[in-house]
């Protein structure tokens, strides 16, 4: 890609520079230099599975924006780097994007840890990061815009649904998750929430597994046993992308039908299901703020744009991609409004931006740097798509500091 040449040469210098310690790069911007959009998603390593699609989404948006004449009459130029699913490398690459490539905005990160590792860099160098994935909340940085869901925009409504008549009036809940901060925090929030709903501790099961866990026999049969106590049981899964395939396989093979033990997942989208034969899973649930099956004009555009860009009519879209799309649109509007790409101006311009998102709702960026989002519950269909069985009437604002974490009461604001 030609548009990546300058950074190539500069980075080449950087590489040599340190070996020979030659004096390094002086940034020399031409007058109407392009607006630089950093892309900080893993293209190799364990997270590549999820993140490569987001890289492509940003590139697609950049292309589209340029086709539409760029922003402020300036061309957009994507700067792609590969942090290789290596968290310290994320920090390094973030610094490189900001200090060397001098990007005006960055779209990136998937896992919480990658975000947490770049956060200090963005705050120090006053950069701008758009983070497109649902996460555990408990964070608010002036340099980050969170376009994914906070727990109250995904987890809690989903569990409420399970407890409702339509969801099957679950009385016992098995919280299964990959052992990292998002599931831990989410489950802590849910535990407190469930207790507030009158479900006793004894009817809550919590199990954690390592990343990419592939042997689910034991846990699934333990869940079966847990469900065998004569109370309607449901599974709440915060299992991370990669481990879901074997997990659902095991569910299917051990004959756990959605009618008996429904499960609702927070990290399983169309992309993950693309990896498995979804027939045994029909009826299991996922909670997101967007499904590919949403019927809205914007979504139709979005899907068409994506499939033509990726040159694959069967390629799916998913929630984080939609969040990326929405974030990008907002940023473009904010830059246009601010009339400049300077971070502080854009940051202020961002607040209150509205975008008609593919999810069919108008999402707004609030002062807490989080979006108001609708919550949707989808049932897995045989074709790996979701059939939306429930959704909030309106987009609901994010509670990134959950009221179900007691410590938030005495949290120092700001």
């Amino acid at each position, binding site marked *: 890609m030609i548009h990546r040449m300058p*950074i*190539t040469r500069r*980075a*080449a210098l*950087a*590489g*040599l*520079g*340190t*070996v020979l*310690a030659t*004096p*390094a*790069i*002086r*940034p020399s911007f031409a007058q109407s230099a392009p607006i630089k959009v950093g892309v900080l998603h893993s*293209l*190799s390593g364990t997270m590549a599975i999820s993140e490569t699609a987001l890289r492509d989404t940003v590139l697609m948006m950049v292309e589209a924006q340029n086709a539409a004449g760029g922003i402020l009459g300036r061309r957009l130029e994507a*700067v792609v*780097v*590969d942090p*290789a699913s*290596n*968290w*310290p*490398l994320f*920090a*390094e*690459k973030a*610094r*490189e994007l900001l*200090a*060397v*490539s001098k990007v005006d905005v960055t779209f990136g990160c998937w*896992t*919480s*840890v990658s975000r*947490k*590792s770049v*956060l*200090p*860099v963005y705050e*120090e160098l006053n950069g701008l990061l758009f983070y497109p994935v649902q996460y555990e909340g*408990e*964070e608010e940085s002036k340099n980050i815009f969170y376009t994914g869901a906070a727990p109250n925009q995904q987890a809690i409504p989903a569990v409420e649904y399970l407890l409702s008549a339509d969801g099957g009036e679950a009385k016992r809940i098995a919280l299964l998750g990959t*052992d*990292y*901060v998002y599931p*831990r*925090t989410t489950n*802590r929030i849910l535990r407190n929430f469930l207790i507030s709903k009158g479900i006793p501790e004894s009817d809550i099961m919590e199990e*954690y597994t*390592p*990343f990419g866990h592939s042997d689910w026999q034991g846990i699934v049969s333990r869940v079966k046993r847990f469900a065998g106590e004569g109370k309607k049981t449901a599974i709440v899964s915060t299992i991370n992308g990669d481990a879901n395939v074997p997990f659902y396989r095991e569910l299917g093979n051990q004959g756990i039908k959605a009618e008996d033990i429904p499960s609702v997942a927070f990290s399983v989208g169309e992309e993950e299901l693309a990896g498995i034969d979804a027939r045994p899973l029909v009826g299991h649930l996922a909670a997101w703020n967007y499904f590919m099956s949403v019927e809205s004009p914007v979504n139709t555009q979005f899907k068409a744009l994506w499939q033509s860009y990726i040159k694959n009519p069967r390629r799916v879209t998913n929630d984080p991609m939609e969040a990326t799309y929405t974030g990008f649109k907002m940023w473009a509007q904010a830059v246009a409004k601010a009339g400049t790409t300077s971070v502080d101006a854009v940051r202020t311009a961002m607040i209150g931006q509205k975008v008609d998102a593919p999810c069919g709702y108008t999402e707004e960026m609030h002062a807490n740097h989080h979006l108001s989002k609708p919550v949707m519950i989808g049932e897995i269909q045989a074709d790996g798509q979701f059939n939306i069985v429930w959704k909030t009437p309106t987009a609901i604002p994010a509670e990134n500091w959950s009221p179900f*974490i007691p*410590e*938030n009461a*005495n*949290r*120092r604001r700001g």
Partner: protein
Amino acid sequence: MSLAVLPAAPDARLRLGLRAGLGLFILLLAVMPLLNLLPVSHPLHVSDFLVSITGKWICYAILALSLDLAWGYAGILSLGHGAFFALGGYAMGMHLMRLIGPRGSYGHPILPDFMVFLGYQELPWYWLGFDSFPFAMLMVLLVPGTLALVVGWLSFRSRITGVYLSILTQAMTFALMLAFFRNDMGFGGNNGFTDFKELLGQPLNTTAMRSGLFYASLLALVLSFLLCLRITRSKYGRVLTAIRDAESRVRFLGYDTTRHKLFAFVLSAMLAGVAGALYVPQVGIINPGEFSPANSIEAVIWVAVGGRGTLVGAVLGAFTVNGLKTWLTSAAPDLWLFVLGGLFVLVTLFLPKGLIGLAKGRTK
């Protein structure tokens, strides 16, 4: 200078050349933070990024040195050195976490954020004392050292060598990685530690502090280089080489090879720990990923690329491979793995003595 250590002629010229080169290189590194102070427009200006990333590479170079001591000289191919590096890093990380104090987002006076939202009530016992800098520094040495002592003693005593030792050490770091991923361990699980605020009363994200850490690392590099030099030049160094080439013969000369190897292994583990400790405040994060076996293997490969059994080679390798990696992950995000993988293949196939070997070939 004794007859014995007076080297053969061509080697001498080379070694002198390398020394000079290294000296010059260190000098250049030393001035980088100063050049960084120059105005951005100045032709000699060095970017913050370059400085900070070089600081990181210096830590890697120390790790490479420690590995070279164990592998290049004592013939102990440890595929678990990443673990010692990470443990040193964690010790430092725990100190930095304690220093955050009430500045965490929950404003808890003692507990780090991750403990707060995981509902910890008080600090686990093994966190006590890490608020004191000297104690933390002591742990930076002791924790990796002790682990090396235990694993090394068990292995060397039962005469586990070669690939068996490699596989064993690899299993060690793998087990540690799994363990540290567990949030119940009280080390922040997958997220590890991040968002550090200060060290020794100085805020971390200032240029002054960054150059401070940079020089500290550079000093550590020079010192560990001299230490390794002292060791390898001594008779002990020759005993290690002898053990590497014919361990049983050394035993028949009356040397307790277990003790000798153990000494080298523990020392090398401590060096790795120091490297990790300097690394963490500069990259601003430490997490279980550092334990991943791939990291350890990569470190071994730096040494192989530079040239095992030559200290300069280890340093050279660390800088070359990492420089290449940084460049390629931006310049060719899709292809860098090919280039790096290819490099490893070529080096092991055609440059058994590494880049230094190449230079040697020249001088002859």
